[in-house]
């Protein structure tokens, strides 16, 4: 028995009440993400929803290239690791050959909105019956904090050391609003996980995305605006505050396209 299990037993014996259990859909491998990073929370929410909907045995997830390239180390379900940006193409291959399965991609903003723009837009446009979970932290976390398509105007990154300059770097790109305009998307929403209330809302959105797959009406696209405290060079608390004050202005939270 692990130390944690022994400790839990002891606490219960002392009369402690169990108020939270880790979903069985997460492995016991500790997250390798930086402390304070939103990725871990999003992982947990997706895995909880899959367990609660009782679709574990029918769900296939796709990990991107980015900090979450190893999401399969933590998500205790069948998973595929994709080349950078190509997760929606993999998802298409899976869903079309196994239409009864639940398929989701998990992608960062570099993965989804830069190198994978084509795959993202076309999977949305074909109305693939999949869910895309898009974690937008405005930066390339994995490779050490370079500018992403979603990096805010003036924001400093290792490849925009003097701040993002729209004249030369172009403008922040919001694929979420863009794909909402396509008839192939069924549900498009933007969430965050930086407060307990937002976590609850986000979980509901993730659940809706999975439930929609049963209806065969098109693609569900859930953006989660998140922090990259390491890449932003802030403490977790500072990063959440900065996110509220800056990211949400460019990427306002809420539903963008709801099922008719």
């Amino acid at each position, binding site marked *: 028995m692990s130390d944690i299990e022994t400790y839990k037993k002891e606490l219960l014996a002392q009369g402690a009440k169990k108020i939270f259990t880790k979903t069985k859909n997460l492995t016991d491998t500790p997250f390798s993400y930086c402390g304070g990073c939103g990725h871990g929370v999003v992982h947990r929410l997706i895995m909880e929803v899959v367990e609660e909907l009782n679709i*574990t*045995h*029918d*769900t*296939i997830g*796709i*990990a991107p290239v980015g900090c979450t*390239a*190893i999401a*399969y180390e933590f*998500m*205790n*379900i*069948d*998973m*595929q*690791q*994709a*080349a950078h940006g*190509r997760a929606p*193409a*993999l*998802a*298409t*291959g*899976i869903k*079309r*050959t*196994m239409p009864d*399965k639940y398929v989701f991609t998990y992608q960062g903003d570099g993965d989804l909105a830069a190198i994978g723009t*084509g*795959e993202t837009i*076309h999977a949305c446009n074909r109305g693939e019956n999949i869910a895309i979970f898009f974690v937008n932290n405005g930066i390339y976390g994995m490779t050490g904090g370079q500018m992403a398509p979603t990096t805010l105007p003036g924001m400093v990154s290792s490849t925009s050391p003097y701040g993002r300059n729209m004249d030369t770097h172009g403008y922040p790109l919001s694929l979420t609003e863009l794909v909402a305009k396509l008839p192939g998307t069924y549900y498009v929403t933007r969430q965050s996980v930086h407060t307990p209330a937002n976590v609850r809302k986000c979980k509901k959105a993730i659940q809706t995305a999975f439930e929609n797959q049963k209806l065969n009406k098109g693609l569900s696209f859930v953006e989660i605006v998140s922090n990259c405290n390491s890449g932003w060079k802030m403490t977790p608390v500072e990063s959440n505050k900065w996110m509220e004050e800056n990211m949400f202005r460019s990427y306002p939270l809420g539903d963008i396209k709801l099922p008719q």
Partner: protein
Amino acid sequence: MGEDIQLMKGNEAIAEAAIRFGVDAYFGYPITPQSEIIEYLAYEDPYNKRTGMVVIQAESEIAAINMVYGAAACGKKAMTSSSSPGISLKQEAISYMVGAELPGLIVNVVRGGPGLGTIQPSQADYFQSVKGGGHGDYNMIVLAPSTVQEQYDHVGLGFELAFKYRNPVMILSDGAIGQMMEKVTLTPQLPRENKILDWATTGKTPDRERNYITSLYLDPEVQENHNIKLQAKFQRMKDTEVRYEEIMTDDAEYIIVAYGISARISQTVITMARKNGIKLGLLRPITLFPFPSKRLFELSDSLKGILCVEMSAGQMIEDVELAVRCKIPVYHYGRMGGGVTSSTEVFEKFVSLFLK
């Protein structure tokens, strides 16, 4: 019941074979000279009318091969086809498929390059196909059809080998074979299998651990061991999967080594030579990887020379030279950039190189 024989284009034979061999999915993107493959499949509409096989015109060759990856990782028989520039785009994902040990079939109906090149036939993608093509140390079995019948048969064989080794297989065809019409004996329709394979991502059932498909092993020791395992697999291919055809090699003093359309042209050269009393034979590799090196080495003892005929600047010749270890002279003859060699040209070249 009589044999089911049809007159077909090489490209159509591939498409019909895909349906008949029970392939689960085809993902493609138009490019000359192989667009008939996706057009034929679109017209046949196997998803609704024949076997339920999925056919998707993807937004790019990159998307198409990554769709293959997704379906293959579920244990499905998935394939794509393209021609040279499109195959260049697929290389990243082919490398990923080898790394993640995924089966799948890639058809390259080669055209002239480099760059946008020409839509005329060529064999200049030999290096790219046989030596890896994408990043990392890897190989895949490369089949080289020289008839429309073989175009058809190699689809079945390709999938058999892809699943046997859990590695992608390539059919290296060319614009000439893709476009020419010949009769093909068709095989009976095989069912799509819908097998649940123990390694595939079909959903984690309570009775097993999760399956995950990845080529990522960050720990160098683990990655090195993974590479060692892959190399052992490529060695097994070399030991067991070499295929070739020999024509009049028994008494030959010289041989031509040629594959695909060049082998067809060279057959006429053999006939011409024999009429002139020259003991010329042909060795036609059917697998380009693994290459019939051992057989060439054996043959070289009794040969005076080898002519490699390829529609390229001379790529396969490197493997022939390696095989015979410089024991006998080896020359190349070929045209480039879409130029097709004639048998007379090859014969004259042979005579001037070896007999003058």
